[in-house]
């Protein structure tokens, strides 16, 4: 059944010709970011030259950059209608809250559990490693972790 022409008129003109050059340029960018991430990961494994948290930040930024390139160029979203871009971009902002809230929750669960886990307290009594001042107002009821 042919349905692609039953929609109302669609302007298939992109306003720019399909550019193979941009595609290959995107490929190289993705490749270089990936190679750099891997090099850093291996370097860290061998030498511990940077704190892991800092390295993780680099990985996350690199991943987001790759994501934006794939979506914008490969999936062509950059050249689409503003309405479509917003339809994708605005709900995606939910991910920010999603990620922060759940990671914060997980971390809080770990801290609370450690504080009240006598085995853990005995083992690590020497160092008050976990933040004792951790807020107790987190209402995260995480499912049990073995």
């Amino acid at each position, binding site marked *: 059944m*042919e*349905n*692609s022409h*039953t*929609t*109302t*008129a*669609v302007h*298939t003109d*992109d*306003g720019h010709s*399909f550019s*193979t050059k941009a*595609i*290959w340029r995107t*490929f190289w960018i993705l*490749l270089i970011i*990936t190679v750099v*991430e*891997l090099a850093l*990961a*291996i370097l860290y*494994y061998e030498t511990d030259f940077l704190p892991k948290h800092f390295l*993780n930040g680099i*990985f*996350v930024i*690199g*991943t987001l950059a*790759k*994501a934006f390139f*794939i*979506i914008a*160029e*490969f*999936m062509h979203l*950059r*050249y*689409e*209608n*503003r*309405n*479509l871009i917003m*339809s*994708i971009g605005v*709900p995606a902002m*939910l*991910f920010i809250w*999603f*990620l922060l809230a*759940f*990671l914060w*929750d*997980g*971390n809080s*669960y*770990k801290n609370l559990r*450690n504080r009240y886990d006598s085995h853990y307290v005995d083992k690590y009594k020497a160092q008050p490693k976990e933040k004792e001042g951790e807020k107790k107002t987190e209402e995260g009821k*995480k499912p049990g*972790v*073995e």
Partner: protein
Amino acid sequence: MAQAVPAGQKWWAGGRSPFNVEYGKLMMWYFLMSDAFTFGAFLISYGTIRFSSNSWPDPNEVFRSFPIIGEMKIPLAFVSLMTFILIMSSVTMVLAVGAGHNNDKKSVMKWMFFTILGGLAFLGCQAWEWTHLHGEGAWWGRNPFMNINGSPSSTNFTNFFFTITGFHGFHVFSGVIINIIMLIMTWRGVFERRGHYLMIEKAGLYWHFVDLVWVFVFTCFYLL
């Protein structure tokens, strides 16, 4: 930049698609949004459990193997290969879509063929990785690896690994099937008769999404 809007253009006045794409393409985008949240939920739950754990296996130790060569001094080599294969197949997919714009049936077929090949290669690699890890004793409910701090690791690690890579692999598999169908349709001249290759574009969106998810899975499991 987004498409320039001629003066007086009313996108929401009716009589046209406000998103300036055909129905099928818009629906594919909506589906991809829903799938993105599904994968996002999986990955964020993985992050939550990991954040709630005192320690976790070191991916550099767990993922050191490579087919034929065996143990590598360089960890993560195999997964780098998998990432490269998938990105390459995304590039060939875009080239297929581009050829479709030029109504170049032969090139569309050529690039779709390479995309399918890349997808199959990725699946093969993932199957090898699973087989290898299973051989080392890892599976849902079984985790032979130690945490970084030396404590015994919980089965969360393997449960999440196999579930998420399995779910992703399933998407790659279905994507390969879709691409094969696209190739056959192209070969039989279906799109030639229609006068456009929009269906290839929609399949392309799905394939790029699969690649996009892999970028995140790769980061979460192997890098972070």
